[in-house]
């Protein structure tokens, strides 16, 4: 789960990481009070989950009240349905650096990543100037040790007063990383002000989805999602991505669904949505189809080859879903795995023509999506 900047900064502030003074507003009328608190000049920052806000024109530096009002109005009317703006004190910047902590899957450690070249896209920097990035593995059994934080901070060659603040910041950021089961916690840019103070210019915190049972502080709401289908899927814990093609996927197994996605593209077809109802969701065929039907598609393709996700249970769910939801588009099925014979029987009885070969099913779906009948 990805948090908004203001949420991440609240977490930082609680952890003792300095953040600029700011006020979150939800409507234009709240701007006046916010400006009294924050002062001018200030920065008007759209609270959206997508990256690259600066380039997309979703962040504005304003010097006057009139400009602040104009920008607030513009952003609240923006096509990207912005719910809230962070009105933030402008900082006198001397330098920007990059700091993050993530997991290194290969080493199976945490990884503190620091670069004196902050403010820009770290992935770009990793390609163009990899030597400008410092990476320090953190053994999660012991945590980030003060000597490690100190070594990294001193290696940046900054002012001593700044370096001492950085050491504390690294350790506090690690506390946040552990406390929130983070996949990633990032400050980019981390400002060093003209009077040598470190301040988090931005804040990114991504909580591991598998840890949500013990991370109950933040909840996602419908307006965080691009569509109703996406929100519904998330509420059900069903992996779902909406695209703008023709074929709605309702498959089981992450790898198999990805492979079906590839096969459709090889056949010249396009995908309307990725939906995977395998694993713990294999009894949710009705809900899965309900979500699929919310997406504009020309055909729904169901491919499974489950073990615990039994074929007969999924087929029963699909037959039930068809009865209840009366889908307005053709459905192609290719359901194999545990108890597959029973599954085939049930699907036939429901008037479907179950297929048994994935490639054949994909070809049929692509044909139907093009307006063919067989």
């Amino acid at each position: 789960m990805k948090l908004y900047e203001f949420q991440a900064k609240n977490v930082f502030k609680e952890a003792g990481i300095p953040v600029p003074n700011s006020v979150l507003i939800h409507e234009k009328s709240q701007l006046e009070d916010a400006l009294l608190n924050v002062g001018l000049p200030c920065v008007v920052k759209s609270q959206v989950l997508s990256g690259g806000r600066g380039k997309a024109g979703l962040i504005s530096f304003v010097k006057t009240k009139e400009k602040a009002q104009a920008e607030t109005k513009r952003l609240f009317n923006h096509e990207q349905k912005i719910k809230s703006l962070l009105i933030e004190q402008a900082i006198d910047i001397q330098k920007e650096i990059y700091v993050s902590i993530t997991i290194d899957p290969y080493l199976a450690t945490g990884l503190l990543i620091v670069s004196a070249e902050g403010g820009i896209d770290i992935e770009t920097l990793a390609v163009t100037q990899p030597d400008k990035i410092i990476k320090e593995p953190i053994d999660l059994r012991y945590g980030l040790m003060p000597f490690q934080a100190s070594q990294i901070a001193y290696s940046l060659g900054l002012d001593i007063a700044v370096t001492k603040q950085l050491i504390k910041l690294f350790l506090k950021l690690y506390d946040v990383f552990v406390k929130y089961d983070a996949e990633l916690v990032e400050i980019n840019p981390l400002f060093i002000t003209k009077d040598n103070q470190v301040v988090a210019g931005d804040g990114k915190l991504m909580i591991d989805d598998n840890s949500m049972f013990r991370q109950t502080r933040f909840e996602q709401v419908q307006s965080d999602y691009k569509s109703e289908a996406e929100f519904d899927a998330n509420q059900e814990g069903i992996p779902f991505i909406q695209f703008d093609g023709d074929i709605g996927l309702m498959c089981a197994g992450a790898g198999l669904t990805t492979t079906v996605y590839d096969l459709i593209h090889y056949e010249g077809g396009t995908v309307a949505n990725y939906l995977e109802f395998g694993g713990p969701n294999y009894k949710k065929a009705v809900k899965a189809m309900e979500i699929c039907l919310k997406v504009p598609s020309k055909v729904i393709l169901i491919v499974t080859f489950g073990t615990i996700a039994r074929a007969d249970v999924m087929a029963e769910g699909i037959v039930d879903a068809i009865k209840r939801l009366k889908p307005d588009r053709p459905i192609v099925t290719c359901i194999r795995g545990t108890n597959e014979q029973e599954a085939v029987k049930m699907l036939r009885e429901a008037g479907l023509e179950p297929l048994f070969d994935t490639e054949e099913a994909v070809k049929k779906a692509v044909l139907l999506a093009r307006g063919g009948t067989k």
Partner: protein
Amino acid sequence: MSIFIDQNTLVCVQGITGSEGSFWTKHMIELGTKVVCGVTPGKQGQFVEGKPVYHSVAKAVENHKIDASMLFVPPRLTKDAVMEALHAGIKKIVTIADGIPLHDMVLIRQAAKEHNAFVVGGNTSGVISPKLAMMGSFPYWIDRVYKKGNIGVMTRSGSLTNEVTAMIVEAGYGVSTLIGVGGDPVPGTRFAEFLPQYEADSETKAIVIIGELGGTMEEEVAQSIKDGILTKPLVAFLGGRTAPKGQKMGHAGAIISGGKGSVEDKIKALTEVGALVAERPRMVGKLLEKLGVPKS
């Protein structure tokens, strides 16, 4: 022969009294697996499929010789259950749990290394040596998937494994041992770490890996071939060739990030060392033939 598990491996089942635990214990025994006992705290004195249940793994090892532990334990309790098995001295552990917290998985892997043990999973179907034994949940009774043979299979997926393995069998081959390392970003054991065992296994004539976008496990396999650790022929099937960049699709580990983990990179690394990469599941069997792998 086979690797990791065969008809002589003595298995303990943690979580044996649960519905999944008891269901798959029955099937593991039916296939030939030597399940010796089970563990569920609070259930000592009960029997499942005629096997005694203990409060703890420590109690189980007091009473039985145990080579491996199979976990049917929910994700949130998995770290504790793995640690319990490790502390009881068990060196082979399989966990099928789907949804183990990321930080827990990092700690599990570190602990496994410290104890010189192999943890397989989570988010996997487990390990199977067809006709001999299994730890996990495989529909071994579906002959067109789990036929015994000489191909060693390693995979990051579940359903896709059934799909690809069915194609290996369709081409006239069978499986020596199949290991599902799992779909999580940090698996307990990585592909390359099993290659020395497959290389040493006289029954295994070739390897198939079922990978996907994201991570670097396929690249590590390529490196092992380059280093001469694996000299047997290898065919890979990789899902996610057409997946959009920057989009987490499928398994949590399946994302292209930092310019790494694209299927193109993996194909390049593997083909450079002489492995073949199948574009479609059906091609896997044909490529094994192309490499001259004998069918028996």
